[in-house]
């Protein structure tokens, strides 16, 4: 069985850990500073007052004037999610996080350990604790497990057997499907509002009308494909942080701090000569919130200058002065995974290369050695940019 764990509104719950009293009052996660003024998740009290997630800020304040806005704390949410995933991993579940607040895991390996499917899922909920209102759905397929989790109440486990799957999915809303907003409206205009209605349509007609995305959604409405769940590799925990005596907004100071953090993190013995594949830069802001950006390097690297150059532009995105800057080496790779150039620039021995090519030509015949000729280097289609032309001389 595949199990899906969901924690709706994890960002809000993580941010409310700082001000727990707000959890019982109408409160919502404030919009991102640079984004559209749309609310994030809301508390139960706010929902009772008519405020919904995704509502425009002005409309929400008009509906509920006492609504408290909670500053987003991306770093706290990431940390909380990581704690939850760690708790599951400590309990023996190999998790595959899909997004913040949604993770999948296979139960097959732990069912015997905990005495069956339901006890195993209860154990998973127990490992997370009651603080997060987690819920779990389990089914033979990923999408069905997600659908089961979406109807479960906090702390509840919903298991859907394969033979019950079509009847279970049929009355569920289309919003469970990974479609663009316009697609839902298009389907609703056609009178399709439930998964069962979409699943009942001929697949070819859906593909013709809605394209590949629609075809995929149709497949999911019928239960989806039986894809396996691959547990993640637990992330590295190498980090370096610096707390400032007072808030700093000066870019030069931040750049110097970043350089120091990169050197410190790379020098940590836990890194053990491994290369860095993914890094995260996080900051605690003067305003009380936090900021976090992750970056995957084009090639894994252990070079401090390269990492610093890649991260420096992110400092300009900081929305306000910071009281703490933190660098995390999120993913590390073995040195064997590092791809090197075939011939180092400038070290090419042209005479030997020419001689080698002559030998290849002699043994394989004319036309076996080619040169690359650019014909349309501006083309967006890679195979149209250049041709392979025989080089016989």
């Amino acid at each position, binding site marked *: 069985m595949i199990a899906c764990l969901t924690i709706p509104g994890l960002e809000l719950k993580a941010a409310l850990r700082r001000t727990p009293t707000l959890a019982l009052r109408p409160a919502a996660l404030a919009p991102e500073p640079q984004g559209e003024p749309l609310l994030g998740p809301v508390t139960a009290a706010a929902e009772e007052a008519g405020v919904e997630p995704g509502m425009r800020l002005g409309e929400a304040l008009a509906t509920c004037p006492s609504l408290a806005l909670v500053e987003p704390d991306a770093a706290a949410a990431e940390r909380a999610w990581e704690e939850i995933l760690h708790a599951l991993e400590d309990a023996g579940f190999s998790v595959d996080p*899909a997004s913040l607040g949604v993770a999948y895991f296979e139960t097959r390996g732990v069912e015997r350990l905990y005495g069956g499917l339901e006890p195993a899922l209860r154990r998973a909920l127990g490992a997370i604790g009651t603080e997060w209102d987690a819920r779990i759905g389990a089914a033979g397929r*990923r*999408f069905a497990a997600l659908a089961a989790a979406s109807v479960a109440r906090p702390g509840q486990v919903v298991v859907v057997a394969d033979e019950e799957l079509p009847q279970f999915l049929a009355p569920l809303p289309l919003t469970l499907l*990974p479609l663009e907003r316009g697609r839902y409206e298009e389907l609703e205009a056609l009178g399709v509002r439930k998964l069962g209605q979409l699943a009942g349509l001929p697949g070819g007609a859906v593909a013709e009308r809605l*394209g*590949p*995305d629609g075809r*995929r959604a149709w497949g*999911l409405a019928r239960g*989806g494909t039986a*894809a*396996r769940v*691959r547990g993640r*590799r637990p992330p590295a925990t190498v980090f370096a942080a610096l707390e400032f005596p007072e808030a700093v907004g000066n870019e030069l100071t931040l750049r110097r701090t970043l350089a120091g953090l990169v050197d410190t993190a790379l020098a940590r013995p836990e890194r053990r000569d491994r290369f860095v*594949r*993914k890094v995260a830069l996080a900051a605690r802001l003067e305003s009380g919130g936090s900021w976090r950006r992750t970056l*995957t390097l*084009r*090639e*894994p690297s252990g070079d401090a200058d390269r990492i610093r150059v890649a991260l420096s532009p992110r400092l300009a995105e900081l929305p306000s002065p910071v009281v703490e800057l933190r660098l995390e080496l999120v*993913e590390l*790779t*073995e040195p*064997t*995974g*590092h*791809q090197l150039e075939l011939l180092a620039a400038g070290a090419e021995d042209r005479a030997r290369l020419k001689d080698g*090519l002559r030998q*290849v030509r002699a043994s*394989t*015949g*004319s*036309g*076996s*050695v*080619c*040169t*690359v000729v650019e014909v349309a280097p501006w*083309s*967006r*289609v*890679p*195979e*149209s*940019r*250049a*041709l*392979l*032309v*025989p080089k016989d001389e």
Partner: protein
Amino acid sequence: MVARSGESRAARAEGRVVARFNAPRAARVEANANGRPLEVNHRAVALVREEWRVVDRWWTEEPVVRDYFELVLESGENTVVFHDGASGGWYTQRGA
């Protein structure tokens, strides 16, 4: 660059051009519900670095609609795959 023997035979038969450089090769890709690759030729994907869509030649009878993914495999290898909107197939491609 050294061409494969089949290609050089084709070159002799058809003239000087052997093949398009960086031509796509069919790949076996297992994707998740959102169409993001999980496995490429039986090798697990460690992370999706970037994804983008190429829509071109829409004015011809052979339009190009491709969803590209730049991936890092568990082995540490970088690779680029795309899902072809016309054929529905998956391909690996260099130089994308």
